[in-house]
């Protein structure tokens, strides 16, 4: 996969505390254009918090985050303009139940980008087609399977043409037989050059699709590297223990 050195996302010394609990303890992470970075780690390691800092759903206690050349933690930055360039996919889909699939995708196109309805519909239909759900455009979330809902959620983010997509355990809430369809969409996105940061437990997917795997534990990056190395010959004991445990589950 062609990767360049141009960093889309550059996070430095990210710290985040909830009260006296320090969840992130100085994390540095640099994501290059078209790179797929996979974050693994035990529950409570701070993976999701880190991801949520990247679009400021959580406000880091300290540190800097630069996305596509703009410091998103700077005072006065238009965070809403930035957020539409940072797509996010949630574990629980969070589709809007009162809108159909098309409406879910067009809402931000119309209200954030100010596109007229026809144009928004056109873009949204293309996005839905990319996730293989063009024919479900008129369906409401409660009429879709979990896998379909998650693909609509991906289309919702994709339609805004983000510079980077964040995936927060996108398949954890799905029945096993529905996981594949979502992973396939993610693989397609990667093929077409989307920059992605993924928090997930799908190790098989990490092995085959990730450029880099980052192991996070207790709010720190323990080790990072190519998937073959992290899964094959981890340098750190903590990584080895985690990998062994997760592989033998």
């Amino acid at each position, binding site marked *: 996969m062609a990767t360049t050195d141009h960093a889309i996302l550059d996070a430095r010394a990210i710290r985040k505390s909830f009260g006296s609990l320090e969840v992130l303890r100085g994390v540095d992470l640099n994501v290059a254009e078209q790179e797929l970075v996979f974050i693994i780690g035990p529950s409570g390691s701070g993976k999701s918090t880190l991801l949520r800092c990247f679009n400021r759903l959580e406000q880091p206690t300290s540190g800097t985050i630069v996305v596509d050349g703009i410091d998103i933690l700077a005072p006065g930055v238009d965070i809403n303009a930035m957020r539409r360039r940072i797509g996010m996919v949630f574990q629980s889909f969070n589709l809007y139940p009162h809108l159909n699939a098309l409406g879910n995708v067009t809402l931000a196109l119309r*209200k*954030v980008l100010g596109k007229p309805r026809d144009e928004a519909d056109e873009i949204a239909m293309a996005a839905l087609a990319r996730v293989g759900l063009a024919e479900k455009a008129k369906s409401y979330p409660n009429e879709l399977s979990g896998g379909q809902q998650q693909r609509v959620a991906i289309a*919702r983010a994709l339609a805004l043409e983000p510079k980077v997509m964040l995936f927060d355990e996108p398949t954890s809430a799905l029945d096993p037989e529905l996981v594949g369809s979502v992973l396939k969409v993610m693989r397609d996105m990667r093929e077409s050059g989307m920059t992605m940061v993924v928090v997930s437990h799908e190790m098989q997917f990490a092995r085959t699709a990730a450029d880099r795997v980052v192991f996070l534990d207790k709010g720190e990056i323990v080790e990072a590297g190519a998937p073959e190395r992290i899964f094959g010959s981890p340098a750190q004991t903590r990584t080895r223990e985690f990998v062994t445990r997760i592989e033998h589950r």
Partner: protein
Amino acid sequence: MTDLDRFLSTFFNLEVMARYLPMIVDGFVLTTYLALVIIATGLTAGLLLAVIRSQQIRLVNWTIVFLVDMFRALPPLVIIIMIYFALPNVGLGVSGFVAVWISLSLVLTAFAEEIFWAGIVSVSKGQWEAARSTGLRFEQALLYVVLPQAVRLTIPPLTNRAIAITKGTALGSVVAVPEILTQAQTGLSFSYNPSTLTLGALAYLILFVPFVVFGRWIETRFAWKR
């Protein structure tokens, strides 16, 4: 049969009813108008307060909760009498119509705020996050994502509450608002025949039964299917 005849001529005296029908119709029109302005004022103000409350400014929220509690605890008739009989003491005399309008609007505002607020709170945090993650501003997320879901949940309780409170327009008879009950009582004092009350009661039923039936229908339709 004479007993029945006497009963009918006392409570269903068509001649008396016909004579006072125009008065009752006037009252009906006024009651309808009063009910509509109360609903419009109360729901708008209630929604506005709930939206302000969602901004989570502590001092503002305490004030809202304080006012809401107060107007849920005070009997509407007490509020009406305070406004109608007490305000003139400081030179702020208002008509009975305005007194009832303000009082019942305040009461409906209090209840509507609570209901709208509960609706807003019941929308999951993930909905806010999804909306904000696509770049929608707070107000946009509220308007396009949260409120449409919140309002759905609030329709049944709001319908019932609006009916219960607008029925209170009958309290206007205490402060001389010429609504249905006032007209019916005036009719009674002239005719000395309670058929005017029967007619007034019918007018209320014509006005409110459709709402009650509508409320029942909407309750089954919008029942918490989540």
